[in-house]
């Protein structure tokens, strides 16, 4: 039996997010899993039919802890010491990226981040994760009896099974002294579809040469009811805000169609978009790495290819 504690998060609408359902699939890769789900925040009604044994809700979330997560770390640490799981799973979100390693070091156990595969091999846990900016993969074996792991979004399909778990509230009896506090949250308002939810993404890179061409990408994204993305090179150059960045240090996206314009396809970019159903590349350099990753490609100058592509797409859509 493998006791798994899975820390799930809700999305903006308050329902259990896809990554949490993906993590249930990941947990089921382990031998004879017994799953407890912890949810930080108000429990969505859907938890009562999750295919797990126990759901624990941590109801009170202090707004000033969001982004620092000292209280959340302590709450989850306490729950781990109550449940004694063999494996603790988080999603690699803002929350998971910060809380999971803190919990692991507080417990003194192994931490592995951004895992795409997880399994039991001869009684040990083995994980697979991208390394060297996505240029390589590595399999690691965990040598402690307990481990904390974050999962790469989109690496597992969302569980569709149902069950009848016990649902309990966890009331923390430790209140953490906040040593850093959030004074303000500035949301940059974005029009249109969120990158993470988009079925189509039109993404631009260094080859665009400046900020102006992104308006053509926006036009195309609008026609396709999709979103605009960018490579780190384009963001670092200041052509577009970092909120649009796709890649290892940006957003991980899983659209049906990912159109890469003037993007060379560096590993760290591909790490954020390689789970797309189809990648289409428009690039004037026939040798660039993006053509090794793409399903369809046009070798050519985007300034000539893209307007004709956009106008043909408009005809198709009208």
């Amino acid at each position, binding site marked *: 039996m493998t006791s798994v504690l899975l820390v799930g998060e809700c999305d903006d609408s308050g329902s259990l997010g896809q990554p949490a359902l993906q993590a249930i699939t990941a947990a089921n890769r382990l031998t004879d899993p017994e799953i407890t789900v912890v949810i930080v925040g108000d429990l969505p009604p859907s938890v009562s039919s999750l295919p797990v044994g126990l759901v624990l809700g941590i109801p009170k979330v202090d707004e000033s802890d969001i982004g*620092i997560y000292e209280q959340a770390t302590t709450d989850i640490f306490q729950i781990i010491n109550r449940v004694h799981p063999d494996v603790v799973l988080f999603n690699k979100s803002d929350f998971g990226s910060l809380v999971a390693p803190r919990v692991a*070091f507080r417990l003194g156990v192994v931490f592995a*981040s951004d895992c795409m595969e997880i399994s039991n091999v001869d009684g040990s846990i083995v994980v697979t994760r991208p390394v060297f900016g996505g240029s390589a993969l590595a399999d690691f074996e965990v040598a402690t009896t307990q481990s904390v792991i974050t999962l790469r979004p989109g690496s597992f399909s969302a569980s569709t099974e149902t069950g009848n778990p016990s649902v309990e509230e966890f009331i923390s009896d430790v209140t953490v002294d906040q040593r850093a506090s959030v004074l303000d949250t500035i949301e940059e308002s974005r029009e249109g579809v969120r990158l993470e939810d988009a079925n189509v993404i039109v993404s631009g890179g260094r080859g665009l040469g400046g900020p102006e061409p992104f308006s053509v990408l926006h036009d195309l994204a609008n026609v396709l009811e999709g979103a605009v993305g960018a490579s780190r090179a384009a963001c670092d150059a200041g052509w577009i805000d970092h909120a649009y960045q796709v890649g290892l*240090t940006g957003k991980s996206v899983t659209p049906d169609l990912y159109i890469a314009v003037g993007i060379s396809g560096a590993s760290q970019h591909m790490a954020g978009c390689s789970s797309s159903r189809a990648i289409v590349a428009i690039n004037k350099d026939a040798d660039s790495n993006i053509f090794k990753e793409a399903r369809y490609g046009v070798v050519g100058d985007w300034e000539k290819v893209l307007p004709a592509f956009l106008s043909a797409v408009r005809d198709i*859509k009208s």
Partner: protein
Amino acid sequence: MVFRIVVLAKQVPDPEVPPSQFKVDESTNSVIPPNGVPPVVNGFDLNAVEAALRLRDSGLDIEITVLSVGSEFAMDAMKKPLAMGADRLVLVDDPLLSQIDSAATVKVLSAAIAKDGPFDLILGGRQASDWDQAHVIIGLAEVLGLPLVSLIQKLELDDDLVTLQRVIPDGYQVISARCPLVLTVTNELGEPRYPNLRGIMQASRKQAEIFTLEDVGLSDTDIIPKLEIKKLYIPESNREVQLIEGEDEADSGKKLALRLHEEKLI
């Protein structure tokens, strides 16, 4: 009193090496350094050095120490932060540290900080471009019992009060905290400065202060890996790209649209 900042910096293989030249040795689970491409300081760590230098630029009396642990340091690479303007370079340089896991790295860093500290501010990059685990500095904060704020794009210092901008998926948070404090810095902070000639000259005259594992009070039994690499490999790409060619580039664009429509992708 001088305000002491330590910036954690890691030597990594140059991430700008094109994927075609990136090779691994599957028998030793290590990366084969491409010919003639020397290692570099992890890019995000240079963003952290830049963050420290900007605080000093604002007129404060600040000493900047760069700390790294490992073996076989390429001194030309490791002196870059000095050339940018950092004051000291401290290395825990020991052959025993060639293949350690992140838990051991945290132990060695905290021992070195105990020996060389105390520091008011501990800075580092958001993640390293080799193993991309993004948690050594988070673990260090936990082990040192210090508060941690991640993904910093801007910081201001007023006595021991730090005001920070922390990047979130669609914007940023404004966070206030008191030193001592651990911060991870992200590339949104801005490009690290290029060393000028004076900086390069000064850096060439400075010597790294080198400690062994024993010097920081640890031995080989303290650094046994608990996360063991079993296999390092380059994923195979079976994908064969279908190039769409028209009479000219515009025609290719049009044909691409038609093809994607046929395939029900648009």
